[in-house]
């Protein structure tokens, strides 16, 4: 264990420097500029003027780098959301998020964690906002798929089958269930091959919501279309025992759907297992930590 502590003066200097880094960039001129007038006087005093630039302009290099790097990471993590908003507007939301939740992990990839929740609260009401919320959740689901560890799919034993009804199926982190009311997955695929920063048009709303299971595979992410009730069931199964999930689903069904539910549920559960939607069976209550099933 390394025991020596950093001197207090270093911590103070670094706190001042950190505040310079996080100073918001000025958007008022239509481009992102460092606002050196906002830097702390003591931070300026820490730095020397250079042969080409005064101290404030030297610190501004770091201030810009901090924001542009994080904007790039945010755009990469939320590509669909970023293009629906356009990068300029997306950066505005990203900056507010990052000021509220500055990165704290050594893993830069974690800096965007929670942005979809932040955006949910930051957007107003309206169809465009709803589409952006949906887009951000799809982007977040996609990120989770790529960050998931190696996961063995559930292969139920005879014992498992016996206790299935009163157990909870543990969602695989390598599978996400998403619903879309706009054809956003198609748009996401199109944008993956189209560079650009400007806002793209939101495609027309779908007549009916579409449910998908997104499954990470060696070659990429496979989209598996789900029936709507199947998607709802998979989502409920992430939070409840099989018995409770089925009861909750049944409560929302029409008479005809209710009559067909036993056979359908059997079929959906069987193919969920076949597709590796779950990685375990537990009697522990849901802690809300499951990374797998995305509730939209």
């Amino acid at each position: 264990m390394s025991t020596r502590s950093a001197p207090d003066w270093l911590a103070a200097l670094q706190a001042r420097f950190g505040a310079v880094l996080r100073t918001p960039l000025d958007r008022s001129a239509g481009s992102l500029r460092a606002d050196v007038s906002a830097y702390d006087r003591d931070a300026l005093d820490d730095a020397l003027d250079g042969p080409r630039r005064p101290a404030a302009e030297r610190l501004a290099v770091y201030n810009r780098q901090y924001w542009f790097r994080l904007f790039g990471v945010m755009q990469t993590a939320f590509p669909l959301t970023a293009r629906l908003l356009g990068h300029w507007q997306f950066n505005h939301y990203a900056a507010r998020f990052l000021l509220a939740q500055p990165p704290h992990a050594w893993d830069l990839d974690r800096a965007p964690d929670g942005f979809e929740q932040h955006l949910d609260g930051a957007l107003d009401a309206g169809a465009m906002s709803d589409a952006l919320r949906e887009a951000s959740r799809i982007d977040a689901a996609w990120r989770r798929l790529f960050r998931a560890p190696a996961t063995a799919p559930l292969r139920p034993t005879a014992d498992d089958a016996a206790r299935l009804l009163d157990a909870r199926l543990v969602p695989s982190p390598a599978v996400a269930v998403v619903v879309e009311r706009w054809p956003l997955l198609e748009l996401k695929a199109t944008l993956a091959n189209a560079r650009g920063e400007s806002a793209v048009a939101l495609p027309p709303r779908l007549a009916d919501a579409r449910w998908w299971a997104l499954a990470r595979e060696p070659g990429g992410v496979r989209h598996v279309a789900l029936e709507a009730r199947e998607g709802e069931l998979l989502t409920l199964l992430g939070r409840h025992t099989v018995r409770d999930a089925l009861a909750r689903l049944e409560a929302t069904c029409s008479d005809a759907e209710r009559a067909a539910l036993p056979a359908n549920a059997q079929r959906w559960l069987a193919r969920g297992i076949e597709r590796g939607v779950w990685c375990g069976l537990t009697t522990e209550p849901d802690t809300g930590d499951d990374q797998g099933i995305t509730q939209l």
Partner: protein
Amino acid sequence: MRASADRCGFRATRHGAIVAPVSEPSITANNDAPRRAPAALARDALGLGLRIAHYGYLFEHWPAVGYFEVISENFMGPALPPRQRLDAVRARYPVVLHGVGLNLLGPDPLDEAYLDALCRLADHVDAPFVTDHLCWTGARGLSHHDLLPAPYVPELVELAAERAAHVQRRLGRPFGLENLSSYVEFRRSTMTEWEFYTSVVRTAGCSFMLDVNNIYVSSQNHGFDPLDYLRAIDFSRVLQVHIAGHTREPDGTLVDTHDHPVVDAVWALYAAAWRMGGPFPTLLEWDERIPPMPDALAELAKARAVRP
């Protein structure tokens, strides 16, 4: 250097390839790879910083490259796809680790959980050496994700050296510290950068990860002779030399963007370093506007041509 490559390109617009892209190329191609390439590097080896942009070409052609350097943090998490790609690369090439998150000069103690993960990764790829930067990257629980300079004072030599020695002990393999590109100097400094750097490495008993582009960038930004810097280096302790491109801003400030070919002045500095202390493994970093892999390898091959 530049912080992360795939993860950060350290320049104003650094990207974030750290994040797995939406559709990474899959690993295809011939399955005639050896079970695992030897770990050791030739002393004059030429290597390339591994970037996601290269995967498509790499996994199809497996070109001749002396070794790859990967950004440690991109592979330290539990995510499966990066690890699968790393294993495919490691099967055919030696891999060295280059970190951007050690935070050697931060105010907080070193993160032992981070070191645990780094050690596991180094063992996994059997890295001939591991490097990170003589810098701080965060403070008081916040991570700034940049390679930030500190004042050059003897008190911090002791701090950095004790921590670097600890890292090397934990790794159980050679650990090298890289010199930064910097854009600011502190009023508090009482030593030159090279006095500080060489003192830390000597006191710690670790090694240099010498970036000649960074020496050049800082020399232009702060007004020193880059040869003075090189003359201070004990080349018997140099694990690796980085070369890279940079950007010149209108007022002459150089920014370590890794988005251009290596400039002539940096090649000249590289040749001078080789004269003083070659051979050493040489690695090209390219993090933004990444060219097709054959072009990056052609740029890397120039190193052989400029050696005296």
